[in-house]
């Protein structure tokens, strides 16, 4: 009884899932809970087991142990075709010997839908994906973006309750990818369909997803909103993986950072650092450290300044509207905070001078 109530809250639930491919442990005690109507990203480096999780939810793989629940029903023994899922493959897997129309109609025909309803539904979907007039084309005659949309429409045609997308943007060139991301998010929000997509691109996950599940080496490291993952990483892996994080050596030599323990390491993100020219007047100028700029990378809207401090190559962003900095120039760098890792524990440590100055004020 209590289990039913628990499941009512989450639409998709994985409990203690384990999966091996021969000797490879692809999923280790995976526990996931996905609320209805959410757009969720499975984010992790390649080989981290994210696609395996997606394929198990779809019924394309079977877990060695553990339970999969969809919509309050245990589906371990339910074939994929009866789980009410739509699946968009990384390669789209459009039927290449069928027209766009036949591709989208395929699932409906299997359900013995009357011909006039099929026509209606396909026309409606083609309009939704803005591909009207392409129904007679074959997949080979479509652009990458169009193929992706047709695959999306094909997955949606049989009215699934759950949409699964495997690296949906991986095979598309950069510019179209950005457009499609926004498009997909809008589509899914509009249709209000619970969706899970797999990606290795954190920007993609942060931009598109309501919630992100971070996987690493077959385990779920953390799940939460993009903001949560960003500001409160639960594990060292998440802290390193999210943001342009760099590990920091010689942590104790940084000014105004205390080292209370011996075996700690630290992680630094560019947004934790600010860089200013000598003589520039800014807050905390007194607490800054001197460094020499080694490299400057133009990022369009900002500059990434790289400098070396206590044998670490550290990045910081600087607006292009500020006074220009050159390579080889001596600058002042102020580090606001760092993630400090001790074993599996992680904490955010602020620069001590921030506290002191605030006391003075």
């Amino acid at each position: 009884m209590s289990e039913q109530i628990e499941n009512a809250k989450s639409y998709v639930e994985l409990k203690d899932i384990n999966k091996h491919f021969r000797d490879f442990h692809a999923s280790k005690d995976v526990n996931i809970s996905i609320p209805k109507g959410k757009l969720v990203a499975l984010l992790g480096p390649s080989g981290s087991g994210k696609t395996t999780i997606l394929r198990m939810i779809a019924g394309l793989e079977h877990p060695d142990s553990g339970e999969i629940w969809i919509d309050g029903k245990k589906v371990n023994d339910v074939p994929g075709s009866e789980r009410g899922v739509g699946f968009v493959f990384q390669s789209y897997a459009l039927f290449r010997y069928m027209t766009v129309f036949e591709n989208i109609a395929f699932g409906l025909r299997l359900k013995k839908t009357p011909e006039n309803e099929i026509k209606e539904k396909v026309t409606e979907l083609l309009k939704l994906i803005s591909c009207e007039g392409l129904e007679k084309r074959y997949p080979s005659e479509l652009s990458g973006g169009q193929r992706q949309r047709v695959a999306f429409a094909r997955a949606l045609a049989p009215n699934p309750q759950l949409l699964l997308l495997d690296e949906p943007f991986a095979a598309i060139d950069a510019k179209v990818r950005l457009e499609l991301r926004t498009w997909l998010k809008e589509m899914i929000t509009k249709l209000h369909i619970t969706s899970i997509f797999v990606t290795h691109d954190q920007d993609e996950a942060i931009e598109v997803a309501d919630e992100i599940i971070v996987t690493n080496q077959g385990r779920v490291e953390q799940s939460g909103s993009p903001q949560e993952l960003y500001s409160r990483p639960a594990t060292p892996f998440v802290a390193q993986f999210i943001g342009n994080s760099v590990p920091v050596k010689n942590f104790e030599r940084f000014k105004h950072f205390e080292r209370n323990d011996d075996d700690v390491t630290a992680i630094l993100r560019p947004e934790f650092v600010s860089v200013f020219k000598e003589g520039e007047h800014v807050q905390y100028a007194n607490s800054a450290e001197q460094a020499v700029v080694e490299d400057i990378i133009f990022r369009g809207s900002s500059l990434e300044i790289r400098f070396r401090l206590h044998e670490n190559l550290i990045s910081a962003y600087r607006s292009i509207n500020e006074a220009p900095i050159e390579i080889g120039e001596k600058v002042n760098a102020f580090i606001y905070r760092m993630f400090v890792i001790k074993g599996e524990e992680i904490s955010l440590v602020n620069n001590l001078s921030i506290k002191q100055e605030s006391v003075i004020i």
Partner: protein
Amino acid sequence: MEIRKDSGIMKWILIGISFLFLGVFLLLPLFYIIATAFRDGIGGYLVAVTDEYAIKAALLTLKATLISVLINTFFGLAAAWCLTKFAFKGKKILSTFIDLPVTVSPIIAGLIYVLTFGRQGILYKYLDPYGIQIIFAVPGIVLATIFVTFPFISRELIPVLTAQGTDEEEAAALMGAKTFTIFRKVTLPHIKWALLYGVVLCTARAMGEFGAVSVLSGHLRGKTNTLPLYIELLYQGYDFTGAFAASSILVIMAIIILILRLLLQNKGKREV
């Protein structure tokens, strides 16, 4: 410039060699077959071709070919399908065994069946009481033909199926398609041309098979003599007109197959 001039000469040399080679080794003998077949005039040719035993041999060849091709189409599809779509133990071994008939001499293939089904064979005592005769009978001929031709279809299909991957089938299955529907709607359109091409190759090889069939047939005129065996028989009997006339039937059948092959190749290419 230098290279281009060179390749011009090289091109013509290579073309020349190819044509000369084909001419000496293929066209000349072919011409000789036709010429000898008509040595005694059209009348002699027609008599030889319409000979009762010649017709029976031709029919037997067609029959054995048809059965073998049908069985091998089924087997070839099954083997290619399981080798490309599933992972299982013994996959490599199966894959290697499929190629065996290409590497083993057809005579040995024939002997294998004699040893298995013959009077001294292990299965003889089980089959004989039911009156089932394999060797020195039509079933033996069919068996031998199947053996020598079974890699042809699967070997054509495996590369195509491997290139396609399993995504489309998985997509269809997730939408609720049953295995046979998936095969008919998704897989078959993809492998259609490769399959037909394999069937053509298999047919050509089956029609011409001599060695294995020779061991198993027993050479009973009008009963177990296929066209190639009949030709040899006539040739051994110094009936050159008859032998070459019968050969010309085989040549004509081969040319029909060749034209079919060409048509299929072009059609397949256009669709891809």
